[in-house]
Each structure stands twice: as structure tokens, then as C-alpha cells.
């Protein structure tokens, strides 16, 4: 699923976002404010410079609020907050993701209208603590989350007439397929995400979402099995 992404800011956060997003093959347009540094030129990425204080500049980017994802990753928190505020005012329905560097700012960014806020230090500090106290968890997460191996976490939206349609979770041989099911959104139970450690025997229907962890090739096989 390729997405159109607007990435605001190309500082240390923006750079990493660009790297990871482009790896997944999304369509990215990088936008920076006029005063931000020019390091993207070295990386050879086309870049649009605007004055974020002017509405015309932002409107001239041609944002489609239904399909575009807007990532706000300016280096200065004040700019980032202002940007989220502006974007939300201009595009009430847009999907805005912001990067925050503290619990305090997360609250402000959420209030300003970001759909999702990634707290830069929260995740990092958990990881550092885990290195000390839970080395095995750290390694496992490294392999699954931080893509250091062929392990991967993925979500699968069940299509119509898939082979698992109408079946119960217990009836499906996930293990034999090399797949671990860890969470599920069962539409019959609402839109809430449920971890499967409770072992509720969900009935799978079209429109449910499965979150699984598997090795790359097993995941491909599983996806083929579902979608055929």
C-alpha cells in the first residue's frame, strides 16, 4: 500500500523518518521552513521550502486531506506545534502525525490536533531501561521491531471470502504456518484492539484486523493464503 506522505522538517528526526518511510516505498514530499538548514541538498532529495507562517504557502502544496499523511517533524518544538495547529485549521480531516520530545509536549501536540504523537524519548527510555533489566526482551524487540532480522510484525485486514472467514481463532493452525497472532480488532466487539493473550476465541470475519509476528517468508505465505 503506497501512501502519499508530506514530511515537514528535515532535521535529525525528519531524516530518520525519510529513511524509514522511503524504505517501505511510500511517496514522500519533503517540505521545510525557510530558515531550516540545507542538509537535504547533500542527500539529493528534492525539497520544497515554504514559510510555515503563511497559509497560502501551505495551501500551495496541494494537500489532499483524505489520502495524504502529514508528518510534522520540525526540530523546534514551537515550530512543530504551530505547524500542527495550522494544518489542523486548514485540513480538519487530515491525518496528522507529530513527533514530540517530552510528555509535556505530547499533551500540547495532541491538543493542537495531531492524530498521533510519537514520543521520541518515551520509547527510547523504555528501551534503555530494558537493556539493563530485560536483555532478552530487548533482543527480541530488536529483531522484531527494529528490523535487525527477518522477523516482522504486520497487520492484515481480512478480505471477503478469505479461507479464515467465519472460522474461530482456535480452529486456525497459526503455529503450523510459523505465525504468532498477538492482537486482533474484532469488528463484532467494536474497534478496540485486543491482545490475544486472553485467549478469547474470536470469530474471524471480513473487516477484522489481525496483528501477527512472523518470519518474512512465512508472512508472505500467510498473506497469500489469506488473500487467495
Amino acid at each position, binding site marked *: 500500500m503506497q501512501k502519499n506522505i508530506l514530511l515537514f522538517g528535515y532535521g535529525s528526526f525528519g531524516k530518520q523518518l525519510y529513511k524509514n518511510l522511503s524504505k517501505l516505498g511510500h511517496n514522500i514530499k519533503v517540505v521545510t521552513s525557510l530558515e531550516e538548514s540545507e542538509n537535504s541538498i547533500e542527500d539529493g532529495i528534492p525539497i520544497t521550502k515554504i514559510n510555515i507562517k503563511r497559509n497560502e504557502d501551505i495551501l500551495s502544496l496541494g494537500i489532499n486531506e483524505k489520502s495524504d*499523511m502529514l508528518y510534522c517533524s520540525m526540530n523546534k518544538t514551537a515550530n512543530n506545534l504551530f505547524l500542527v495547529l495550522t494544518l489542523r485549521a486548514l485540513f480538519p480531516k487530515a491525518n496528522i502525525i507529530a513527533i514530540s520530545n517530552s510528555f509535556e509536549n505530547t499533551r500540547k501536540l495532541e491538543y493542537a490536533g495531531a492524530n498521533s504523537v*510519537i514520543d521520541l*524519548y518515551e520509547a527510547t527510555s523504555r528501551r534503555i*531501561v530494558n537493556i539493563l533489566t530485560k536483555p532478552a526482551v530487548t*533482543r527480541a524487540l530488536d529483531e522484531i521491531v527494529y528490523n535487525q532480522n527477518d522477523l516482522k510484525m504486520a497487520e492484515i485486514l481480512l478480505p471477503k471470502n478469505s479461507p479464515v472467514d467465519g472460522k474461530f481463532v482456535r480452529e486456525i493452525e497459526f503455529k503450523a504456518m510459523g505465525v504468532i497472532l498477538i492482537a486482533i480488532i474484532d469488528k463484532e466487539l467494536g474497534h478496540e484492539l485486543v491482545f490475544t493473550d486472553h485467549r478469547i476465541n474470536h470469530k474471524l470475519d471480513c473487516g477484522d484486523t489481525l496483528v501477527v509476528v512472523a518470519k518474512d517468508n512465512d508472512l508472505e505465505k500467510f498473506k497469500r493464503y489469506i488473500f487467495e
Partner: protein
Amino acid sequence: MKQTKHKLLSFAYTLEASRRYKSIKTFVYNLIENDSYPYKKYFDFFMIMVILTSVTLLVIDVKHHIPPWLDHLDLYLVTSVFITEYIARFWVYSDMHKIIIEEYEESFYFEQEVSVFRVFLKILKNKWGYISSFSAIIDLIAILPSYRGLRVLRILVLFRAFKMLRYTKSLTGFLFVLKNKKFELITLLSLSGFFIFIAGIMLYVFEGDNDNPNINNLFDAFYWALITISTVGYGDIAPITPEGRVVTMLIILTGIGLISFVTSIIVSSFSERLSVLREGRVIQDVGKKKNITVVCGYGLLGRLVCSGLVKEGVEFVVIDKDEHLAQQAYNNGYHSICADASQGDIFRELGINERISHVLCLTSDDIQNAFIAVNIKSLNEKVYVTARCSDDEIAQKMEFAHVDHVIMPEEIAGMMGAVYAGEPVAFEVLLSIIEEKGKTQIDEIQITKDSFLDNTKVGDIDFEKLKIIMLGVFRDTDSKNLGKFNFNPDNDFVLESGDNLVCIGYISAIANLKSRM
């Protein structure tokens, strides 16, 4: 003569070779001098008790004469304790036999005769360092009251109270503060001494010749001058002539100035030294523990990490160069030290070779983090260093410097942002697992020998009943490295003791499983 020399030398070598001698000496040293030795506090407590008893006896003796057996107890027991202590301190102050050996080897090298006299002189010079030290003098004076011939000596028992300073760290700190302002205090003291001298003589000249019945000699005049200049003013001796009153007015004015001066010097020196005293306390506290983690940098990330460490019950010390940040960490109830983590001193004081197991470099400056990391690794290669970094190139250099774990907050955020773009639900799962906000968490469980999971096939374990999802197993884990990660092991995979299971589950389900191990 030659025989004595020979005997002396062989005795020195026997001591040098004797393990037993060394261990006894180390034990005694630890007991009386080493603040981080756990049993020293019992010794200190015992000594304080002995001193208090002897002072109490002195006080009781003033009005009610104490029975002779108590007096003897005081005389023999207390004195012998003090003398033993004095000799022990004298003994552990330095190694005499080493001086002998050194001297012998030196003269052997220069092909000279060993002179017993020179060796003796050298030892004396060395030990004189102990004898002439302030605390040793007090110790010696505290022994003197045992000599009952002179009544005045009894009052020296109070020096035993002074001795208590030695056994309480905070009181030593007070002396330390005064020592730091030695120059200022001495200047002021000699200045006031000068004023008292002049004023005393002047008053004596004006009123000493029978004008004032209270001033009979020079001592009275000096006494009056001190009482006046210190603004105490008993009034038992007062000037009666106009000249004497003029002198009084003058020294009262200088007295006020001097007193406030001294007060301000002591107060300011205390506020300057307060943090140092506190840090000394931190180092002392840490000295009693093992496996200490050092957090360098108390910025945004440092704060979050510290609160995480507290939750997990990890012992740690915060170091920050910035005084305010170090103070903040202290206010939050952590052990904190204001110091430069890129220098070796502070880590040596904390015991880098014995106590520190992990160091986290979390300042916001990459170069600084690399600097700290290299500093640690050069002091002790075995300490596990985790460094934060926001630049790929610097991260490579850190890995080159053998930093064990390089963490890039921006990379983590960038990675998560990318997951969100394609798979928002997986992102939510990730966030909840990584940030540990929800009740479902990821944790590790080590299989202990003969527990119900030891020697069990994965297929035979009822994970449904345990209410746990097993992601995988780490096998062949040794003390330093984790072994291979077996993701989603097959049903006939047999679990062994020592394996680390990585599981997702409800907090209580995981706690339950852990308690069964």
C-alpha cells in the same frame, strides 16, 4: 651489628611474604579507616559508646563520688581501648617493612652498606606524618587523663569527646569546611587578637592603677577586652574613666564588624561546600552496594530513564556537569553528583572496578557521549556502556570504541513513524508494548532447574491456560551474552533450564509464571 641487620631484613621479607600478616593488616585498616567497609560502623559505634561512658563518669564524679571500681574501669578499660586504637592506627598508617626492603634494595643497587640508623630515621619520618596529624594529637591527649597525678588533666577527658568527630562523618565534614577557609579565619583571628591585645593594654594603662577595683592585673584587662569585642558584655568589669569608655566604644565598633565577618565567612563556606558534603555522602552510600548503574546527563531522556529505573528497582547514580540539573536530580530523590563524567576521577571514586556495572551516556551532545563512553571503557573495559547518539557517523565511531549499545532516539521515532504510515494497527500494538502503557506487556522469564517447564516439550505446555503468548526462546545464554533466538519454536522443541522465554501477556499472568519459577 651485621647480625641485627640481617635479622631485620629477613624479618621484613617474612612479613612481605606473609599472606596472613597482610590480611590481618587489611582487616584492621578497613575496620578503623575505610568508610566503605560495612563493619566499620560497628567499630565507630563502639568507640562513641566508650567515649560517652567516660565523659558521663567525669560529670557524675563532680558531685557524687563514683565508686572506685568504676573509676578503675574507666582508668584501665577505656585507656587500654584508646591505646590499642592509637597503636593500631600508627601501625596501619604505613608499612614499615616495605621501607626497610626499599632501603635495602636501594643500597644494594648502589653497592653501599645498609645503615640501620638511616632506615630508622626514614621510618620515623614516615610515621611522624601520623603522629603530627591533628586527629592523632587529639587521640594522644585523650589518653592523658588516665594519669591521675594531675587534677587538671581530668578535664582532658573532654578531648575524648573531640575524638567522636573521627567516628561521625558529618562532623568531620564540618571541620573540613573550616579547613577550607583556614586563611580567612586565621587572618580574622589574628586581627581580633591584635585588637584585644591593644585594647586590653590601653584599659590597663588607664584604669589598672587602682582607679577600677575590678581590674587588678593584665589578665583582667584582656578578659574584659575579649568579652567586649565579642559583644557578649557581661558587665562584671566595666570602664569607669572617660578614657576607658572611649576605648570601649572603639572596640565595640570593631567587634561588631569582626563578628559579622567571621559569621559570613563560615556561612558562605558552608553553602559552597554543601554540595560537596552531600556528594561525599552519595559516594559513601554507593560504596555499600554492588552493580551500580551510572546515568550521565539528566536532561529530558535522563529523567525518563531514571524514573524507569526506579520502577524496576535498579540502583543508580546520576552525574551531570550542570549544577542545577544535578540539584534537580537530588530534589527528585535520586543519588546525584555534580561532576564531569568525561573525567576519570569521579568514576574512580565511585569504584569503577568493583561496583559499577552499567553506564548510560545520555547527554544531548553526541561528542560528549562518545567522550564519556571512551573514558569509561579506558578505565574498565568490562563495564557495559550504553550511549545515546543522533548521528549515524558518530554511532559508527562509538561502535568502533566498543560501546556496547548505541541508541538513537530519532531512529526509533523514525522507525515507528514509518510503521504508522502503512500499518496503523500494528503501530498501536507496538506502542503499547514498547511504552508499557497498557496492562499487556512483554517480559522475559528464565526457566529454573526442576521447575514445571524444565524438560518440557513446547507442544505439551498449555499456553492457553497460562494466558501467555510465547514469542520465542533464547538458548545457551551465558553471563555476558544472550544465546540464539528461537522464534516461535516447534511443538517438539524441549525447554531446558537456563532458557529465557520472551512472552507477551497480562502483567498478572507473567507475575504468576515468574513466581512458579
